[in-house]
Every structure is written in structure tokens, then in C-alpha cells.
């Protein structure tokens, strides 16, 4: 900022950045799962394929809560899908100074069968720990919560996580499998990255089959 320059309002600069597509607000995602007994083989495979070979896989232990926000004033809007917001923080005491993460995830675009990955709009926002109270007072309802432990790998801009989900109260595992996710955050129009993800997913076959998963089909209701 020079003395001649007036600061631009934050909202204006953000909308400008949004207009020229430099904000990474699209998540490209492939998901799959692997049985506990086979997970070591997958970790070895990923260690060989990914960037962080020397540092070995990064481990994480997170807590995540999912909140929903509905427009209760509008009767018609009650039947539409609520806005979902996810709050995530690390359970590791060494990360206690790290910001919490607030995540908005939009509806997935699955329609285009030629597209190799699921694409959904997504905002990842670092925030202060007051976010839980803030969302509750905003009128958000806590839908579910869980803890997740696992390993994180990187390959270029791609993020690969192999993680296990636990109930937060008693740390009981939810299933006998690990969830495998291959994801990438990119600005609108960066569809070429989806092809790189498809190629990478091919390399993990037949240990794990990463696919586009329609979450609406597996939802309880």
C-alpha cells in the first residue's frame, strides 16, 4: 500500500478475485475404502507414489462436527436441503495453537458422466475456536460429530488421506475399514486436474477403487 493508494474494501477485492477465478473454491473428489488388514499395503504403495517420501506419511487425529442451517422462517424452504457447515480441529495437543477449520461444502455435480471426479463447491476457512458457539447461536443444529485418525499424503496439488472414523464419545471405530479420499481444491474451470486424479487413482487399483460417490444415495433418508 503506497501513500497515494487508498485501500480497497475487502469485499470488493474478494469479489474481484472471485470474478477472475483465482479463489480455489471447487473440490474435486474421489472416494473409496479398504479393509483394516490391507491398509499397510496401501500405505506402502502411497509412500512410493507420493511426494513426501522422506518424511513418511503425515499422521493426523482430528475432531469434526457437522452443523446444518435451515431457513425456518420460510415454510417452503423447510423442505429444501439445509446449508451444511463442518467444523474441524486437531485433537493433537501439539496443534493446539493452530486455527480451527470451517468448511462449507455445496451439492455435488455428478451429472456429467464424462467428468472423472465428483466436483462440488467448497470453502475452507481458518477460524478462531469460538466458531462452535458462534454457529450454535446463529441457529445451526449439530447434526453429527466424529473423530478421525489417519495418514496424509501429497502428490503435487492432490491430497490423499487414508483415515479411520471413530465415535467421539468412546473412540469406538465405526467400521472395519479405512476411508480413502483423493481430493484437490482448485478454482472454477481447472477441470484438467480431474484427469490427473483419474490417472493417479488408476495406479492404486486393485488395492482400492476410488470412485465418484453420490452421498445423497447413501444418506439415511
Amino acid at each position, binding site marked *: 500500500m503506497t501513500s497515494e493508494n*487508498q485501500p480497497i*474494501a*475487502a469485499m470488493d477485492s474478494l469479489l474481484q478475485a472471485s470474478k477472475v477465478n483465482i*479463489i480455489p473454491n471447487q473440490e474435486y473428489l474421489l472416494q473409496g475404502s479398504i479393509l483394516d488388514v490391507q491398509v499397510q499395503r496401501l500405505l506402502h504403495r502411497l509412500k512410493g507414489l507420493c511426494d513426501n517420501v522422506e518424511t513418511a506419511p503425515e499422521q493426523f487425529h482430528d475432531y469434526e462436527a457437522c452443523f446444518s442451517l435451515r431457513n425456518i422462517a420460510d415454510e417452503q424452504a423447510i423442505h429444501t436441503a439445509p446449508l451444511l457447515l463442518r467444523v474441524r480441529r486437531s485433537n493433537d495437543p501439539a496443534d493446539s495453537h493452530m486455527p480451527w477449520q*470451517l468448511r462449507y461444502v455445496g451439492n455435488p455435480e455428478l451429472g456429467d458422466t464424462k467428468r472423472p471426479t465428483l466436483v462440488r463447491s467448497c470453502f475452507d*476457512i481458518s477460524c478462531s475456536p469460538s466458531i462452535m458457539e458462534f454457529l450454535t447461536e446463529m441457529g445451526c443444529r449439530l447434526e453429527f460429530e466424529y473423530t478421525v485418525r489417519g495418514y496424509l499424503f501429497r502428490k503435487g496439488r492432490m491430497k490423499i488421506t487414508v483415515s479411520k472414523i471413530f465415535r467421539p464419545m468412546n473412540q469406538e471405530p465405526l467400521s472395519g475399514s479405512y476411508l480413502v479420499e483423493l481430493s484437490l481444491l482448485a478454482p472454477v474451470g481447472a477441470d484438467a486436474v480431474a484427469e490427473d486424479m483419474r490417472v493417479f487413482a488408476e495406479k492404486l487399483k486393485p488395492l482400492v477403487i476410488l470412485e465418484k460417490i453420490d452421498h445423497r444415495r447413501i444418506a439415511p433418508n
Partner: protein
Amino acid sequence: MGVTILVPYPLDNKKTGPEVVEELSKRLLAMQATQTGHFLVDGDVFESSFNKTKIHVMHNSEYPASVFSILDNGQKQIPLITDLIFDLLMLKVNPIYASRKQLKIESKGPRFELGDFLVKLGSVTMSQSQTFKGLLIEVDYRPCLIPIICWELIREFLQGFLGQYSPTTIPVYFTNSVPNPHHPVPYQKSNDTYQPIDTVQQYLEHFNNYRKQTIALMMGPNK
């Protein structure tokens, strides 16, 4: 970062806002201050469609990568500090929380550095019509983090260039009792470590006063 004190500058009918800003700028330059650009603090209000909850979303050019939000449900205020992308999320939350564009308010003007002090002369304007509302003077004493320790020094400094208009007591924001989540006895902000959100909360108090004045004027004296 240090301790920031925000004081409104009373305007009489003799001089306009820009004239006062120019006069104070000259005074600061005569005190060997250097102008280091401009600053901007702005505040938007989002109001719930089903209750009285308000979310104040504010930005401070001193912290250009952050958004400061304060949720006010009438009984308590919950501050939240986030990345800039939070602004895009607030657009998604519409119409559950709708933006009250006519209550948008901002304070902007020149920024000066003078030794350990930072002085900002803010002209407050409201809504898209940019109606002038008043002047807010921000003084930041950077080497200290506990308000009560450096208040006397800031007061003396303010007296040096505001003269009769300088405040004699620390702003009420610092002396109000705040409930302590870790202890039954409430504490005062004046004894606590100063944080960037404290600057934003001081601005919010003054912004809300300007908003109330405007709403009162719009409603007329009979209502």
C-alpha cells in the same frame, strides 16, 4: 500491534469533517509524524430472518487477511476471527441472514506514524450514499499490550494534538466487567492482553451509535 484507543472527535458547526482532518493532519506533520498511506475499517450487518440475531462482519486494513465477525443476540456478543473467504460464505447464508446494505458503515482516512505511535484520522460514512457521520480518531501505542499500563501515556499523547477534545478517562469499553470463562470473578479489558478484535469491537460500539442516531432521525421525533 499494541494497544489501540478509539475516540470520537466532536464536530462543531464551524468546520466540516474534511477541514478538521486537514487541520489535524497538519498538526501531526508539524509534530514530525510521517504519513504512511491510508486505512479503512468497514462494517456490514447481517440480520436473521427469524429472530433478532445480528452478525456484524467487519474488516480492518491493518489486518488485510482477516474478517472479524461479531454475533449479537441481544444478550451477549460472540467474536469470531476468520479468513477472508468467510465473506463468500456470508453470501451463501442469505436469505437466512440478509445483508442490511443501508447500515453499512466505514471509517477511512490518512494513517500516520510518529515514533511508537500510530494515528489514524477516520471519516465515518454510512450506506451506499456515503453520508458523512463524524470523525473517529484511532491512536495505537505499539510497544505495549496491556491497556491500563499505557493509558496515561496515550492520554498525554492525545492531549498533545487534540487539546480540549482529548478524553480524560479510558473509554468505557475497557472498564466494563467481562465474564471470565475460567474464573467466577469477572475481569476488565483494561487489565487483559490487547488483541486485534478489541480494536474492531471499539469500532463496532461507535458504528452502532451512528446507526442508532440515523435510525432515530429517520423515525422522526414522534415515533
